[in-house]
């Protein structure tokens, strides 16, 4: 892998996962909600996109629906699917706080994963859906990888812009008020649970879009791509970037993806060596995570620059 293609891959996947980190940032840093089931909203977006664009089943296919619609319909459907899933999971759970919310969202993600794995009529079970439709960038004369890198960055920028505007609006101030002191906010007539549900559902939409983009880039959706590891990956990225800022969330994700891609790009002599490198990468990620949470260097740095 050359250096330029490494940068391009980092940009594509980094920007795409940044969308997840941004949403998580909104939910955790501003809404005070710990969502340990992020991957479920991502998966529902990816599967919705695949099901809407896939041709009707034939031959050995076991899935029941393939609507064969154009890609932009699938893309919109991905946002809607993620929104609906957020409504279904958010409505009953958001009255729970802190660690209980973390556990319920985690449980919902596991349930969805198990359904995708076992219920072959959704998406061929563990095999998944392959050859997912995608717009062909060659029509406008751009190279595949470059086009999807641009698409990912565009989605990331739009999400960042949307969240930025949202949080600087009166609605954003209400969110902060509920987060800082729920009783006081309720005293002036703000319904805390309702606000939290709104934040939860709004932040799920871009995750669904990112899922659709992921399906386009990899042209494959399978349960193995959507495990709890992805949720934890996004959490680590969020912690690395330092919480509470949009730029931090993006930089943290890009740094983590670059680190993983760089390790993946090293040529290894044997399978065992590659395996050890993957494990060491996991250990380093975990230790980085612990260190960042313990010393919080970014917050200290920003405090110093302010003073």
């Amino acid at each position, binding site marked *: 892998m050359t250096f330029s293609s490494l940068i391009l891959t980092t940009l594509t996947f980094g920007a795409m996962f940044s969308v997840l980190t941004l949403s998580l940032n909104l939910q955790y840093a501003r809404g005070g909600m*710990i969502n340990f089931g992020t991957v479920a909203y991502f998966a529902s977006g990816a599967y919705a996109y695949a099901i809407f664009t896939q041709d009707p089943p034939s031959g050995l296919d076991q899935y029941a629906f393939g609507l064969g619609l154009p890609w932009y319909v699938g893309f919109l459907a991905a946002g809607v699917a993620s929104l609906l899933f957020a409504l279904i999971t958010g409505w*009953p*759970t958001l009255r*729970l*706080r*802190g*660690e*209980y919310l*973390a*556990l*319920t969202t*985690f*449980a*919902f993600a*596991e*349930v969805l994963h*198990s*359904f995708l*794995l*076992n219920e072959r009529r959704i998406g061929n079970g563990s095999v998944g859906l392959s050859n997912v439709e995608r717009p062909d960038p060659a029509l406008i004369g751009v190279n595949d990888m470059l086009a999807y890198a641009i698409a990912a960055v565009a989605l990331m920028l739009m999400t960042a812009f949307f969240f930025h505007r949202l949080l600087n609006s009166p609605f954003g101030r209400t969110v902060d008020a509920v987060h800082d002191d729920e009783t006081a906010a309720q005293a002036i007539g703000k319904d805390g649970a309702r606000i939290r549900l709104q934040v939860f559902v709004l932040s799920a939409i871009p995750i669904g879009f990112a899922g659709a983009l992921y399906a386009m880039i990899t042209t494959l959706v399978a349960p193995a791509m959507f495990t*709890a590891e992805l949720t*934890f990956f996004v*959490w*680590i990225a969020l*912690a690395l970037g330092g919480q509470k800022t949009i730029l931090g969330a993006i930089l943290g994700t890009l740094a983590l993806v670059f680190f993983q891609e760089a390790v993946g790009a090293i040529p290894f002599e044997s399978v*065992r060596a590659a*395996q*050890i490198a*993957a*494990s*060491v*990468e*996991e*250990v*380093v*990620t*975990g*230790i*980085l*995570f*612990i260190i960042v*949470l*313990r010393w919080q260097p970014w917050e200290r740095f920003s405090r110093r620059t302010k003073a």
Partner: protein
Amino acid sequence: MTLFLQFFLTGIVTGSFLILATIGFSFTRRVEGFLNIAHAELLGVSAFTTWGLNVLLGWHVVAAAIAGIVFTAFLGLAIGRIVYDPIRRLGPSVLLITSVGVAYAIGGTVDALVGTGIRTLDIPLATSYRFAGLRITDYQMIVVAFAVIATGALALFLNKTSMGLAIRAISANPELAASRGIDVKSTSRITWLISSGLAGLAGVMLAVVATLSTDIAFHQILQILAVAILAGLGSLYAVIAAGLIVGVAMDVSVFWIPAGYRPLIAFAVVILVLLFRPEGLAGRKSR
């Protein structure tokens, strides 16, 4: 009917293992006040330490198991002192998220040292016994026996010794306990040793009844969480009841629905409990 009872009996064995795996987790939650996601990785550490000593170095399985449990207990203590103690002031959410990082670090280390593949301990094959048409192996009986011994010993320790009293005082009200002269530091150390040691014991049981692969620890955390939530993250007796309920529900469900959904049953239980009775089976209202 015999088949149904057979599933029920297997469910009790599964439940006993879940009790062993969860009491340490629940104990940490009670005394240290946070959910330690890395607890399940300690099961893996113990299982693979035992495997390494038993198979690679040729130790007798009992010696290997004891060494594995002791090593895991002290590893847990070290992690508690080095990683969790300094950030306790940041609150349970940060501790919970940090424990994910710890789980990564431990899981990756085990992966790097052991590698992929399926492994078993160097022990005789299980002998099957029949009682009124129901089958149970000797290793399954060992799991049930250890679950009974471990919970009984822990209950005696908490209720009959002064250290147990100190631990209960700290879990009820840390500030008050400290102001009454209870040594919080040494109590916390004992807690880490006990809960990690219990994780070690559960890991050894896992190595005895199941085949080992390095992702086995991660699968356990899902079921541990299910049992802990159902128990209400509190009393020891609730953990026993919850472990048996989840174990039996998972194994008996195979009677009606495809076996692939077995783990899903645990989570269906979690979701139902959190929606209708968020304080758990025996917990007080504290949301």
